[in-house]
């Protein structure tokens, strides 16, 4: 019997044969925390009785969720994390460097790695072929202390991607469509594995968007095989030597196969208050919005800001709206500046927020008012997610967000691209 990608990586890292349903202890290549889960992780780590990290160079601390901090308690949490990183000798990415998952992709994640992060969107690094999954603070504390953690090897769903995106349709539309099909718990405890001839045309940025949202269908990981695009991305980021070919066997056992023809997709939205409440934009257009938010670990990369910048170049946001842009990392911000997108967006009326999570989780930089509607490129629209349970969040691609902020209402981006 052939192996799925999930079985292959967990077999390598547990030094045995890992089959779906087995429980294995796997070596952890990288463990990381961010600033809202990290303080608890550190307290758990200390409580567990361990003094030193198993592998200091394989631990990373990110200050991205409250960045810069809006409250004294969070500032004190940042102090705790900086001290911990200093003492433990592990790298720290301070306020303003960017979102943990983007920085993992730019600097750390490699095919075949096992990565655990105290953040549910750790799955993002599956785009690079890493078995990367989110865990709570206790599990990450133990991974930091022991350099290993237990996993139940997941069953896998195979997502077969064929065809090419039509104009105005992007990776975000695909992943929203998929979540609508699978449901918010449809892939609970499973791995999503992507395959198909469409991958040859799918940039790393698009793959990161898709892998990022695997968890919104309940999945433990969202895995892409490694290929030329993976190799080129690693080379561009100074890690060409970390490339290794990695894919599932043809005879691997999949619990479900979900074929998607990209050419038949259209712009999609998640409606409040559930990510799997998915509809085509065409059916929802006309809903007034007060805020558009382009950023996050889902859609805060250069390609995303470029799409928005091009749509809004020479145009203006609707006077009844705010347009927030939060680049996913400092590198993204610099590149978006060099290419002139930041200029176009500021001229169109955008507010540029520092690289980080910004308005995504409702603790600062764009908290919504009662009854307000936000069109966001993030991955979650749960009630209260952006700081106010009386507000409504729609999720869409950066193109849909840009088109909508121009008209002041939910708008099909195909009118503008």
């Amino acid at each position: 019997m052939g192996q799925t990608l999930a079985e292959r990586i967990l077999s390598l890292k547990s030094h045995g044969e890992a089959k779906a349903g087995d429980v294995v202890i796997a070596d952890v290549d990288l463990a990381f925390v961010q600033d809202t889960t990290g303080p608890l992780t550190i307290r758990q780590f200390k409580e567990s009785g361990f003094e030193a990290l198993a592998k200091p160079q394989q631990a990373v601390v990110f200050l991205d969720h409250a960045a810069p901090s809006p409250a004294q308690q969070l500032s004190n949490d940042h102090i705790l994390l900086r001290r911990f990183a200093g003492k433990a000798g592990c790298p720290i990415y301070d306020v303003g460097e960017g979102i943990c998952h983007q920085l993992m992709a730019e600097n750390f994640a490699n095919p075949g790695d096992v990565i655990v992060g105290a953040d549910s969107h750790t799955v993002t690094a599956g785009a690079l072929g890493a078995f990367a999954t989110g865990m709570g603070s206790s599990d990450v504390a133990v991974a930091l202390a022991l350099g290993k953690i237990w996993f139940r090897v997941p069953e896998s769903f195979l997502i077969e991607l064929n065809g090419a995106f039509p104009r105005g349709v992007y990776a975000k539309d695909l992943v929203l469509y998929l979540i609508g099909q699978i449901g918010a718990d449809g892939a609970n405890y499973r791995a999503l594995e992507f395959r198909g001839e469409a991958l040859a045309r799918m940039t790393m940025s698009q793959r990161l968007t898709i892998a990022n949202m695997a968890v919104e269908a309940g999945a433990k990981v969202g895995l892409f095989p490694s290929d030329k695009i993976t190799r080129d991305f690693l080379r561009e980021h100074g890690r060409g030597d970390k490339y290794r070919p990695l894919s599932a066997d043809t005879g691997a056992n999949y619990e479900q196969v979900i074929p998607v023809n990209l050419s038949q997709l259209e712009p999609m939205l998640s409606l409040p208050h559930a990510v799997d409440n998915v509809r085509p934009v065409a059916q929802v257009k006309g809903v007034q919005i007060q805020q558009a938010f382009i950023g996050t670990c889902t859609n805060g990369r250069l390609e995303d800001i470029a799409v928005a910048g091009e749509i809004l170049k020479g145009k203006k946001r609707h006077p009844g709206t705010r347009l927030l842009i939060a680049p996913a990392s400092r590198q993204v911000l610099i590149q978006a500046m060099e290419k002139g997108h930041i200029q176009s967006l500021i001229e169109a009326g955008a507010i540029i927020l520092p690289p980080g999570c910004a308005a995504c989780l409702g603790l600062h930089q764009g908290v919504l008012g009662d009854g307000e509607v936000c069109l966001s490129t993030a991955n979650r629209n749960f009630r209260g997610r952006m700081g106010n349970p009386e507000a409504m969040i729609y999720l869409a691609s950066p193109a849909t967000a840009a088109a909508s902020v121009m008209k002041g209402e939910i708008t099909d981006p195909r009118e503008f691209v």
Partner: protein
Amino acid sequence: MPDLVLKGKAIKLGDNVSTDDIIPGRFAHLRSNLPELAKHVLEDAAPEFASKVKALSVAGGGKSILVAGRNLGLGSSREHAPMVIKMSGVDAILAKSAARIFFRNAINQGMPVLLCDTDKIGDGDELEINVIDGKIANLTSGITLSCGKMPPIMSAILEEGGLIPYIQKHKDFKPQKHY
């Protein structure tokens, strides 16, 4: 160490209660002050929840059992979610299904979580739970429910009262390799 055989009353919640519902991100500044944070448990999604749990304990040592529908704890990995549920006085959680990270976090906090057909349980029903056997007797309706078994490593962690006590005791996962 948690009680693995317990009797208590059901407090029902619906489907898709997310970790943002359990403890919204806007309270992130309280995450290093757990007693304060716990005061906001389910504040927007089920404002009467905390007072129901409190009323049960005041009414004579009764245990509270949180009974949810599908996909309990979806969303963020914040372990603070099962922590504040525990701090509010809940002794066990039942759900039709639970999101992976939440399930693992709850066990890591020594909080029993069992998955069963919770449609068969009404708000306020008297329940008797045996966590190890995975059996739930609904004393109000007379129905018995059985639950799937969790992996042995999870029950071992739960029996020690959570992952940190487990690691304090064993210093490692045991047994070491595949099992």
